[in-house]
């Protein structure tokens, strides 16, 4: 064979469609991979398989209806999504909710974050081939979901927030159950480390894989635990404290490595911090009304309202442009997954197919959040 022919054969790339139905894309995401053997040359995400045009729907809906749509975006951080819209609307109608509501919202947010991270941890193990972790994660998540069920009647899409407060007051044994859960989970979280974090194979699979530099993290807008693992200080709870975050003490988890293991550790540490926040608040829920009465159809004054919250995946922003009517003129959701997915190619280029799976699970994508 002439050298020309040999080169031609060598340079032949091939393409693989990962998704829309694939076990590790966590939903209907389609990745077009260009491969050279097992080495990834390029990752091209194709979106829109579950795009429901929520932003367009919002232009026809009243503000109270919009809250319910936000559940369907990042369903694992539904409470925080609800909260973002409610806070923006409350800002618009200049309504100050009671301290009780603020504390309840914060506790529920942190519980939601915990449940989201537990699910992520289980799925992460499964993506790397350790299926047992999946069941462990779900076992512990079940306790939180049960608390949710007792509090607001729903297990996943909770719709607990309404503009002006929360839908119902917390049940009598809410505090007892949350405290029980914290005691239980403090024993179980070290188990997570035993099973995965300290495992040699797990470390080999994640350390030094999918590195995202701090500059890239900022430029791509990778927020949440994924961004903080690269050293990008982006915790909204610290920068723009909302609800009761200004009265609790917690630390922002920052790592500098930016690899899969740092992202993994950031989430594990965040679980400890969440429990710490809940512990500070659970015994000090102030008395007060759980819900301020608002008009049946809220009309926001003419103007613009931006509210960001920290969901389990990062910075979630609601940008309401109101023209004084009962529904917004334009509503934009800044979803964390959308920006994070943008950086996938930078992280995955040059690594192996198996690494892509590890990267995909450490950036913790929820596809409805991306597609909106």
């Amino acid at each position, binding site marked *: 064979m002439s050298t020309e022919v040999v080169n031609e054969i060598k340079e032949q790339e091939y393409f693989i469609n990962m998704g829309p139905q694939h076990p590790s894309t966590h939903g209907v995401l389609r990745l077009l991979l260009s491969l050279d053997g097992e080495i990834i040359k390029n990752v091209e995400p194709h979106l829109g398989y579950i795009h429901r045009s929520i932003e367009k729907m919002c232009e026809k809906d009243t503000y109270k209806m919009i809250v319910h749509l936000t559940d369907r975006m990042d369903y694992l951080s539904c409470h925080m999504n609800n909260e973002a819209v409610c806070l923006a609307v409350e800002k618009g109608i200049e309504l100050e909710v009671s301290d009780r509501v603020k504390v309840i919202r914060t506790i529920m947010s942190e519980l939601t974050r915990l449940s989201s991270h537990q699910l992520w941890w289980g799925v992460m193990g499964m993506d790397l081939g350790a299926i047992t972790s999946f069941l462990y994660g779900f076992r512990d998540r079940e306790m939180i979901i049960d608390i949710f069920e007792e509090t607001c009647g729903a297990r996943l899409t909770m719709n607990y927030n309404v503009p002006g407060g929360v839908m119902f007051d917390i049940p009598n044994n809410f505090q007892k159950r949350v405290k029980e859960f914290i005691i239980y989970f403090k024993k179980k979280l070290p188990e997570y480390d035993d099973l995965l974090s300290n495992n040699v194979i797990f470390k080999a699979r994640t350390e030094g894989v999918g590195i995202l530099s701090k500059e890239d993290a900022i430029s791509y807008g990778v927020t949440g635990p994924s961004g903080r693992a690269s050293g990008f200080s982006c915790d909204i709870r610290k920068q723009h404290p909302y609800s009761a975050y200004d009265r609790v003490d917690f630390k922002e988890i920052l790592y500098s490595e930016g690899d899969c293991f740092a992202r993994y550790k950031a989430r594990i540490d965040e679980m400890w911090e969440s429990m710490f926040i809940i512990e500070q608040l659970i015994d000090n829920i102030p008395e007060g009304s759980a819900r301020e009465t608002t008009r049946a159809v809220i009309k926001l004054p003419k103007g*613009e309202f931006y509210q960001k919250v920290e969901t389990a995946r990062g910075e979630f922003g609601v940008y309401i442009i109101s023209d004084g009517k009962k529904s917004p003129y334009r509503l934009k959701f800044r979803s964390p997954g959308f920006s994070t997915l943008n950086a996938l190619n930078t992280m995955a280029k040059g690594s192996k197919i198996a690494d892509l799976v590890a990267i995909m699970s450490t950036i913790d994508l929820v596809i409805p959040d991306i597609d909106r």
Partner: protein
Amino acid sequence: MIREELKNKIISFGIEISFPKEDETPFLTLSVNPTHLHQLAKQLKEDTSTSFDYMFCQTGIDWLENMEIVYHLRSTSHGHEVVVRTQITDRENPTVDSVYDLWKTADFHEREIFDLLGVRFNNHPDLRRIFLDDDWEGYPLRKDYVDEINIVEL
């Protein structure tokens, strides 16, 4: 940097800007002509006293008489935030310079705005529809988009 200082600093760039809605919004808002947009964005990012290195939101709005693109910027080192707005008067064929070279997150955000509002971004490396099919007709987020089957009027 407090709001007033930031405002003076940005004025000192010498780019033609205006400050609409002075006290209405929590962020300092500035409005710029689309032709100067990229120049201003570059200054905002690269000047060390402003250094807006993180764009957390990019929104397109259809105002019926014009198209508006809103950039929410934040400086990770100084912690201040600014909103840059630009109005594109040609609503039928809106065009503006891409800011992908400054903030990479603009890649997806601009593709989304192109997909749903039909704003073209010059110098964008890969301007394609992101959510909808390539042969989709019209731009759904425009106010005059009609879909009798799927859009329910209240």
